[in-house]
């Protein structure tokens, strides 16, 4: 089991050094503005911008391509549908009785770029930030919500423990599937209902194990004096540095660019 979105790759880039909070904000802002892009010039600018940031991060291209793989099929299918069925005004060329329109081509390119940019932006966060840092960042960002009794610390703690358990459960699932196959279980049934039913011997032990782990874990945490967020100090303190400033300035430039294009230049 491999989770491609979210494997931290150590590095020394501006992105790696920046505070997780700025990176989380960056990611969210980027996503919103990418979705706001409509015209080809806006797309062009966004793409160039994302590519520049990507180059700064120093993440090898193959990792980005890896995170694109799961959506590649979806992208190809929608592109084909767009090209074949979308009716525009200018015919580019014809395949048999189907006309491929200029507008369809642009639409497809835009769609591909949009998905590409969204995934690259999100991957940049997860590839340059440890899961601990991400949860820390989320905790800090959610902190103001404590006023409305929002349990920011508890949620961040839950997330970080969940992240720690993921590889363990992946191993455990693999082991249980193997053990039940050895006993003669069948997992490759064609029938959907049978298929779901065939996973009962995997799911029950997995849940029983997970509950046991959770119980053990809560006892272990309690015995190490855990009592919620109150009175806790932090080993890793988040600091706003010049890297964050640079990152936020870059983001601001991009956002201003998009806004200007949309309102003043109208391109």
């Amino acid at each position, binding site marked *: 089991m491999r989770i491609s979105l979210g494997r931290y790759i150590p590095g020394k880039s501006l992105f790696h050094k920046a505070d997780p909070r700025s990176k989380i904000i960056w990611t969210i802002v980027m996503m919103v503005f990418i979705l706001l892009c409509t015209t080809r010039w806006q797309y062009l600018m966004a793409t160039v911008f994302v590519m520049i940031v990507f180059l700064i991060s120093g993440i090898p291209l193959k990792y980005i391509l890896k995170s694109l793989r799961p959506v590649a099929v979806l992208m190809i299918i929608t592109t084909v549908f767009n090209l074949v069925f979308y009716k525009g005004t200018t015919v580019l060329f014809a395949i048999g009785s189907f006309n491929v329109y200029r507008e369809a081509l642009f639409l497809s390119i835009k769609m591909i770029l949009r998905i590409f940019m969204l995934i690259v932006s999100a991957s940049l966060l997860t590839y340059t930030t440890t899961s601990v840092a991400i949860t820390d960042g989320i905790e800090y960002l959610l902190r103001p919500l404590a006023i409305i009794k929002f349990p920011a610390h508890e949620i961040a703690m839950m997330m970080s423990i969940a992240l720690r358990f993921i590889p363990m459960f992946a191993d455990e699932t693999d082991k249980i599937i193997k*053990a039940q196959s*050895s006993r003669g279980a069948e997992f490759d049934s064609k029938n959907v209902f049978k298929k779901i039913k065939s996973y009962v011997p995997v799911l029950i032990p997995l849940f*029983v194990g997970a509950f046991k782990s959770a119980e053990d874990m809560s006892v272990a945490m309690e015995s190490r004096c855990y009592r919620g967020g109150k009175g806790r100090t932090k080993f890793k303190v988040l600091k706003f540095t010049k890297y964050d400033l640079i990152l936020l300035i870059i983001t601001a430039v991009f956002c201003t660019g998009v806004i200007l294009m949309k309102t003043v230049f109208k391109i």
Partner: protein
Amino acid sequence: MSIKLEDIKYTYMPGTPFEKVALSDLYLEIREGEILALIGPTGSGKTTLLQHINGLLRPDSGSVFIDGEELTKKNLFKIRQKIGYVFQYPEQQLFEETVFKDIAFGLNRLKLPEDEVRARVYDAARLVGVSENLLERSVFDLSGGEKRRVAICGVLVTKPKYLMLDEPASGLDPEGKNAMLRLLKTFRDAGITVIFVSHNMNDVAETADRVVVINDGRIERQGTPREIFTEHDFLSGIGLSVPDVTDFFRLLSERTGVEIPDIITLDEGYAYLRDVYSKGGIPS
């Protein structure tokens, strides 16, 4: 009739940073009717080897033969009937409402008549020593030791000719552990070939007919426990040890300069010392 592994090579997670040659140049024959112990340091490939024997893992190259028949994708199910595999902590895989149903799980695909299923479950329970009044209980109501026995029944129910157990005694208290070791002998006496993984050299010396030492994905030694446990330097070189009794007599021999025959079990040690004392004690 036997299990044969020929020139097995297996690489773990090829093409990733975690790539590791898990097994290489591996030849092994497991003869019918023996208790074979598989020993080796953690991460040496013991479990990977077991998983090749029942086709859970497929070798990159090389073949596995079960009673002369090569293991392929097609005969996988048939061969797994022949080769039982008890995972480490097998009790973690129990899931049915009742002990009976859990034991019978392995028979579901065979579509056997009900009385045959019943007979097989009872046979397995009797062999392993699971009492009949447990059969209608929930699997989650049993004690740890009982659960492990039930899990073993669930593997035996297909009447395997070969039974592989990955550290069957781990986590058990001494009483449970000794009972488990006796059980392995019971299986052998019932005509089942037993292959077990263990870290406890005392247990291996007391139980196994033959020992295979695996290190770094290769089989480095095989032989009777006596042959293996005389190679103290080799074993400690790869991070293994010899039985405590063997170690004790080696120390005694070193200190006294007296030549002492290889002793690997408590019975042998006792017989030797009794003999020496009857002749007037250890000369120092």
